[in-house]
């Protein structure tokens, strides 16, 4: 896996900035070569991941740092080489308890517990890591084989 940084965003944990990140992600996914539904879906995943950081990690505090780093990556190893968009989200909140990272069952009608589902449904890779005092969420979405450059 080799990365080629395209864009890095640094923001505070203020929900008013969510639309700003979506504005950037909508365009970045388009430029990257994803289809319109894929663009919406990757943008949604990043938005939901940021929402979770703001709500669960920073518990509503508005001035905490978040970083979103977007890179072009190649998946080797398998017979076909595939190009993907990797998005690394980092925060300085307390360590996330992996046992809590579970959405609710989808066959109930009740509010909440949907964000992680949306993220997992959108992305090919979803990995949580604790690294140098930071939570790091790594999301990757690969281009369809026909769109590979």
């Amino acid at each position, binding site marked *: 896996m080799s990365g080629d940084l395209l864009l890095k965003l640094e923001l505070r944990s203020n929900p008013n900035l969510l639309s700003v990140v979506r504005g950037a992600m909508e365009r970045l996914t388009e430029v990257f070569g994803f289809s319109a539904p894929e663009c919406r879906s990757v943008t949604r995943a990043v938005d939901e991941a940021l929402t979770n950081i703001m709500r669960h990690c920073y518990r509503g505090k508005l001035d905490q740092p978040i970083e979103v780093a977007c890179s072009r990556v190649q998946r080797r190893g398998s017979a076909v080489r595939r190009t993907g968009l990797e998005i690394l989200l980092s925060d300085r909140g307390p360590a996330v308890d992996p046992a809590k990272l579970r959405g609710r069952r989808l066959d109930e009608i009740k*509010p909440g517990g949907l964000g992680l589902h949306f993220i997992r449904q959108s992305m090919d890779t979803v990995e949580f890591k604790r690294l140098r005092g930071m939570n790091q969420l790594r999301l990757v979405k690969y281009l369809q084989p026909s769109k590979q450059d």
Partner: protein
Amino acid sequence: MQISARRVDKTTIFDVIGDIDLANSPQIRKALLHEIREARTPKVVMNLTKVRYIDSSGVASLVEGLKASRDAGSRFILFGLSPAAREVLQLSRLLKIFEVHDNEEQALAS
């Protein structure tokens, strides 16, 4: 995001402009619950024609509206879903749970 209310006979129509996300879903929730629980409006309609995006907290607010209206024995209707709004309800397996119409005319006639 801007939300405003219109009254047509016994129906309240909420016109929402802009994305619904964590920054404003509490405001949507409050407006909905007030209209359903306090004002006891028999039919509440959400005009989502000008809403491009709804996040999971927005979906949660709509679900709260739906539950409140079921409790109150009233109706809660959505119309004008954008592709992203439709997708988010589909992913939540809620598209068939909500009463969804294409446009205002159909929502009012229903």
